[in-house]
């Protein structure tokens, strides 16, 4: 606010001085020039009348010649003053208006408004840097869960788009470079209600700068950063970025899992993708030789995963030098039949169209399918706008980096343990994964699956902490008991238990809970609400433990105490 006032005042300096001087000279002139009253006596205008006359003359209201008709000398002077004052007024008004239309001024106004909006937030919010497709998806999902957010993006058109996207609540947004610490601070990095920073711009370097700045200024603030290269990922990791998300790495992992271990893949899919319906028998992806079109960041990540899992792959890349491709590749884009034939498409089992161009990717898939109709197809969809054509192309797996990113980020926000769980299951046997899948299917049926984690602590699970304070045992079994009827279980599956550095997959129900235990659950959303309620309410906990159903507030306990004592006395 102050800076706006100062800018306005500074710009007003010259017009003000000009007006003062013009008025002064005009008034002085009228005081000096001899006049005449009705009777022709010489009369000198005083400062009072001069100021009065100049005041209305300069605004061209023109009440006439007051108090006596002017002499010609006075009229001559009035004429000069009239033009001088009117011109200086026009100049002054123009100067004021130009301040309001000044880009710098508008920018400062917007910044100030943004600062104020952020300061006023009184609910937990995420600071999202970068409002691209990922940002949009994440914001929509946060809005569904009624979690607030603050948006910073470098491009004004994205901020404008945000104003059009109807989210149901006001999202403070700023067009600015989030890698600058002052912008981050204005966006609420130090705000008490800021619960995390998402660095998801499409520029790796900017993400790095955001992560460093927020880690240095607020070391305890969780930072989720997007990156598309290994170097940056290592760099981000080195100073303690909480979560690093690489969409290409994640997808190549996902695809390899689909090929090598379909059950793992089904579980992964089910847990990360809320709309996904699990299949009791996951689709079997073919084993054999694959073709990868495009050896960019995605192609490289995919090839590494393929080599690790002993999957043979032929690479098609138009520019092997720039991408540092290995020698045994086929040169070309892959959209022409010649190139695909050279890569022996007829003998391949699957094709990955992973270039950065959506039209090329579609063309690759169409051409390849014509040459080999049994081909398993995977295409990378870069733009959300192309969704309809990709859907129409009957592609087996569509890779959408932004959707991938936003699902990943939402899992991290909902239940940070989920990512650990997904990493852990990769080392598990298929039979174990099948078992978990069946359990989940029994519990959830056809409804959408939600995941959440509960941490045993005095502030998150007040009731359990109280019970533990009384040296009583509280088992995991009790946590999954329905608080409305203790004989049945809530429709949830405990997936992972975390304590200090220890992880227990599918923890047993007779596990004794300790302070600091974090447990990852999967199940129905409604069950998560029941569970959270039961962890805080001491009456419910007593009911779950002992089956005693009654009001157990301190006041009631005191009253029943008095009552039982008096009744004893009566006897």
């Amino acid at each position, binding site marked *: 606010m*102050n800076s706006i006032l*100062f*800018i306005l*005042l*500074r*710009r*007003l*300096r010259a017009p*003000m*001085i000009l007006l*003062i*001087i013009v008025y*002064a000279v005009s*008034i*002085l002139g009228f005081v000096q020039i001899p006049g005449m009253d009705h009777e022709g006596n010489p009369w000198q205008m*005083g*400062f*009072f009348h001069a100021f009065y006359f100049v005041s209305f003359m300069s605004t061209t209201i023109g009440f006439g010649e007051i108090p006596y008709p002017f002499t010609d000398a006075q009229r001559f002077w009035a004429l000069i003053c009239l033009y001088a004052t009117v011109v200086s007024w026009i100049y002054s008004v123009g100067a004021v208006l130009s301040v309001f239309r000044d880009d710098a001024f508008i920018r400062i106004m917007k910044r100030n408004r943004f600062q104020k909006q952020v300061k006023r937030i009184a609910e937990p919010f995420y600071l999202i840097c970068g409002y691209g497709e990922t940002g949009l998806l994440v914001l929509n999902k946060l809005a569904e869960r009624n979690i607030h957010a603050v948006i910073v993006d470098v491009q004004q058109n994205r901020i404008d788009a945000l104003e059009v996207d109807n989210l149901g609540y006001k999202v403070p947004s700023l067009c600015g470079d989030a890698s600058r610490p002052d912008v981050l601070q204005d966006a609420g990095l130090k705000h008490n209600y800021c619960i995390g920073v998402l660095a998801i711009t499409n520029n790796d370097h900017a993400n790095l700068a955001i992560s460093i700045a927020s880690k240095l200024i607020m070391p305890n603030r969780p930072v989720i950063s997007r990156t598309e290269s290994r170097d940056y990922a290592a760099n981000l990791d080195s100073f303690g970025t909480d979560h690093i998300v690489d969409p290409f790495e994640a997808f190549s992992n996902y695809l390899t899992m689909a090929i090598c271990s379909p059950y793992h893949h089904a579980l992964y899919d089910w847990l990360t993708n809320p709309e996904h319906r699990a299949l009791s028998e996951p689709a079997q992806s073919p084993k054999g030789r694959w073709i990868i079109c495009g050896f960019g960041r995605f192609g490289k990540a995919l090839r590494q995963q393929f080599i690790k899992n002993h999957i043979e792959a032929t690479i098609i890349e138009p520019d092997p030098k720039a991408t540092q491709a290995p020698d045994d590749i086929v040169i070309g884009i892959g959209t022409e039949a010649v190139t695909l034939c050279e890569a022996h498409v007829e003998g391949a089992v699957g094709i990955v169209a992973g270039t950065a161009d959506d039209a090329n990717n579609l063309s690759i898939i169409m051409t390849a399918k014509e040459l080999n109709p049994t081909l398993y197809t995977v295409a990378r969809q870069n733009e959300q706008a192309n969704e309809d054509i990709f859907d129409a192309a009957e592609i087996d797996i569509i890779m959408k980096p932004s959707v991938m990113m936003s699902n990943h980020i939402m899992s991290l926000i909902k239940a940070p343990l989920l990512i650990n769980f997904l990493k852990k299951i990769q080392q598990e046997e298929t039979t174990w994964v099948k078992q978990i899948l069946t359990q989940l299917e029994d519990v959830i049926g056809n409804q959408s699956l939600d995941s959440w984690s509960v941490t045993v602590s005095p502030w998150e699970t007040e009731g359990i902490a109280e019970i533990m304070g009384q040296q009583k045992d509280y088992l995991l079994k009790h946590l999954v008991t329905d608080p409305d009827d203790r004989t049945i279980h809530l429709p949830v599956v405990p997936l992972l238990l975390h304590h200090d550095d220890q992880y227990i997959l599918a923890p047993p129900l007779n596990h004794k809970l300790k302070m600091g235990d974090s447990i990852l659950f999967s199940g129905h959303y409604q069950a998560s609400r029941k569970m959270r309620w039961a962890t805080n309410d001491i009456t419910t906990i007593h009911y779950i433990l002992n089956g005693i159903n009654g009001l157990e507030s301190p006041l009631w306990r005191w009253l029943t105490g008095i009552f039982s004592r008096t009744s004893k006395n009566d006897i």
Partner: protein
Amino acid sequence: MNTEKVVFAFFIVLALTVNFGFFLGDIDNIDHHAVYELFAAIIISFIATAMKFGDRTYIGAVLLATSLVADLQLVVAAVDWGLALHVREEGLTPATVARIVSLSGGALLANVTSVILLMIEAALVRR
């Protein structure tokens, strides 16, 4: 030499000197106090105020405040003068003149503060 500083200091010192010129003389004797001097004092004081606009430093803010005080005192003196002549139509009685001159005396003090601040600022600059 900084032209802007010269103009700035010129108007601040001029505001003080003109104000002092008007103030000088018997307090209730209108012959010792010219109306032109009051007019000049007001105009110069206004210009000095406008020149102090938009300075974000601490000393700049105090300078602006002293100028506003001087403006207020002088304008009240001028309004009183006008009222005495044209509204109350009692003419410039010694009581009115004394009131006007003492008001300008207040403005004089504000202008003195202004000049002292200006000197302090000048002394702080080591160039």
